[in-house]
């Protein structure tokens, strides 16, 4: 078992998506300047080659086991479930991965690819800093030069992760253009890539960007869903009734969902960031409150104004503060296979505290959005049912944000 892109045990499997040009229905694609079309073709060819290379897969699996610490546990949150009085809630413990989030699954895969392609320099964009840390980590391990682009505003709110990246030997470049957040960091990384394509591999941190990134990142992250499926079957002898994951770009969500796509009895719930509330306009919920457009190399749901300009997003969680979303989620929304909801800052903070106090697990603020929705869903599903929440990361990085929000100086 390794990085196959479709779930095993599928009875009537639909045609695999994306198509050859990276389209998920009307979404996805390759909307980049001509200079990048050649490098993307090269990346696609390399990926297609190595994805079916047993040696590559074996190395990936070994790294996930020995370096990341996989499989990550599937933990039954008994006390929390009992308090909520409904479905049993399992947590997929991606927070226990090396570097503290699911992001490392993908950076391991892409870095192995970079090495095989003979690239000596790695670049990445980061919002919360988790993907930046995961990229700096694999770069350190493989002895590759690493540059991480990060919005000036995010640098301010994630100082610890900036320092972690620097300790790991990465150069963190502050992005001062546009809204100075994740989307601008992505723009800047793309500009670096187009300038240094010969020796540079761009590790995108989520299932966005031009084809093949959404498919490739998904494939590296489906280890989450494949493990969950197996672990849940072992524990319960059946499949879960629902899966819940937060959606920024959508990589932890698609990683969990994808191996269950054909299992139509399993509800899929993606949770976006409602920030101050969907009706305030200050949020980061393109699937819930945006519309389709083109940004960062793909067509997907976006937060934009009537002139097609991308608008500023808001969320207490830097990792969800992104105006777009992976194109496969856009497709899953339109097709009705998955549903998308939004949880605001205060609901996420409440869930952050609840999990910390009832289970002794401090969740990332991103993951707290999924937890907040699970707390609503569990009673609604009722006892006898069971759901799995992707606990995509640990909350140590957010302690400062939470304290500040609550008027406490650390």
């Amino acid at each position: 078992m390794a990085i196959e892109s479709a779930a095993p045990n599928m009875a009537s499997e639909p045609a695999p998506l994306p198509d050859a040009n990276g389209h998920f229905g009307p979404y996805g694609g390759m909307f980049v300047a001509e200079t990048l079309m050649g490098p993307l073709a090269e990346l696609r060819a390399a990926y297609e080659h190595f994805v079916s290379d047993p040696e590559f897969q074996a190395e990936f699996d070994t790294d996930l086991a020995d370096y990341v610490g996989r499989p990550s546990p599937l933990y039954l949150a008994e006390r929390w479930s009992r308090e909520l009085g409904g479905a049993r809630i399992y947590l997929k413990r991606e927070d226990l991965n090396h570097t503290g989030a699911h992001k490392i699954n993908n950076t391991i895969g892409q870095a192995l690819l970079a090495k095989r392609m003979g690239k000596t320099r790695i670049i990445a964009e980061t919002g919360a800093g988790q993907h930046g840390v995961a990229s700096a980590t694999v770069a350190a391990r493989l002895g590759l030069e690493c540059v991480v682009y990060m919005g000036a505003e995010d640098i301010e709110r994630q100082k610890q992760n900036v320092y972690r990246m620097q300790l790991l030997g990465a150069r963190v470049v502050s992005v001062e253009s546009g809204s100075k957040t994740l989307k601008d960091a992505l723009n800047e990384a793309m500009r670096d890539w187009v300038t240094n394509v010969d020796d540079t591999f761009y590790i995108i941190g989520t299932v966005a960007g031009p084809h093949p990134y959404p498919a490739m990142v998904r494939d590296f992250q489906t280890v989450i869903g494949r493990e969950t499926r197996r672990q849940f079957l072992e524990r319960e002898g059946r499949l879960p009734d629902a899966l819940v994951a937060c959606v920024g770009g959508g990589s932890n969500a698609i990683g969990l969902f994808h191996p269950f796509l054909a299992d139509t009895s399993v509800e899929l719930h993606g949770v976006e960031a409602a920030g101050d509330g969907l009706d305030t306009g200050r949020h980061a919920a393109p699937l819930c409150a945006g519309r389709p457009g083109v940004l960062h190399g793909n067509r997907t749901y976006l937060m934009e104004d009537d002139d097609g300009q991308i608008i500023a997003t808001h969320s207490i969680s830097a990792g969800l503060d992104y105006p777009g979303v992976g194109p496969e989620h856009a497709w899953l929304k339109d097709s009705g296979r998955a549903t998308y909801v939004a949880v605001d800052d205060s609901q996420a903070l409440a869930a952050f505290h609840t999990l910390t106090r009832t289970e002794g697990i401090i969740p990332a603020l991103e993951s707290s959005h999924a937890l907040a929705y699970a707390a609503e869903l569990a009673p609604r599903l009722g006892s006898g049912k069971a759901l799995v929440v992707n606990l995509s990361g640990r909350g140590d990085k957010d302690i400062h944000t939470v304290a500040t929000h609550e008027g406490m100086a650390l």
Partner: protein
Amino acid sequence: MSRIENRFSILRQAGRKALIPFITAGDPTPEVTVPLLHELVAAGADLLELGVPFSDPMADGPVIQRASERALAHGVSLHDVLDMVTAFRASDADTPVILMGYLNPIEVFGYQVFASAAAAAGVDGILTVDAPPEEAAPLAEALHGVGIDPIFLLAPTSGPERIERICALASGFVYYVSTKGVTGAASLDLAEIAAKLDQIRAVTRLPLGVGFGISDAERAATLAQVADAVIVGSALVRQIEVYPDDPRAAMAAMTELLGSMRTAIDAAAPQAVEA
């Protein structure tokens, strides 16, 4: 014959090379743009490239990024840009105008509606940086339907197959990106550019423009020896930042720079007239 085709054919007969300035619409203020376009024509522009501001100009260097930000601070939209072209056309019926920008504002406008509005405004060509031929067919069709040329980029990384494919879809002219990088990048390899242009000429009769990183008269003249058109953007736009509080002075500096390029290109051009 489209205005672009016509302009290139006249230049070719005269043995001259085209000079194409780029400015961002609405930079530094919306009022400046139309007068500036006229002044650029007076200073020697053969065609005009008008940038449509976008919030996420992924293929642009810092100079044009900031130009976009200045224009957006005034709320300049694609509708406003079309109004500017209409105003320009009221007193210049001949100089081709090409809009250069990103796809999303056109997506929101709607391809068909946009194509009609752009044609009515007097736009001649549309270059959407982030719409390679793989994704551009529906837009190109809408544009062709109203007689607007879809302008495509070719790059140092474009292989023979892509060159053929893109030349087949393009009309007006082909825009060769001189270097791997964003607009305003510094280094140009002239021999490499010339070799690539030869390769492109082997598959198309369309005129070839070269842009990205052409910063002074000397480089413009050198490139004009091997290309049919030279496109200058960041070097002009930079003047707006040299005179942040004095748009008149910035405009004067821009027209002066363009004029010096015009002179240098004409002086260096081979006089022989091609058929």
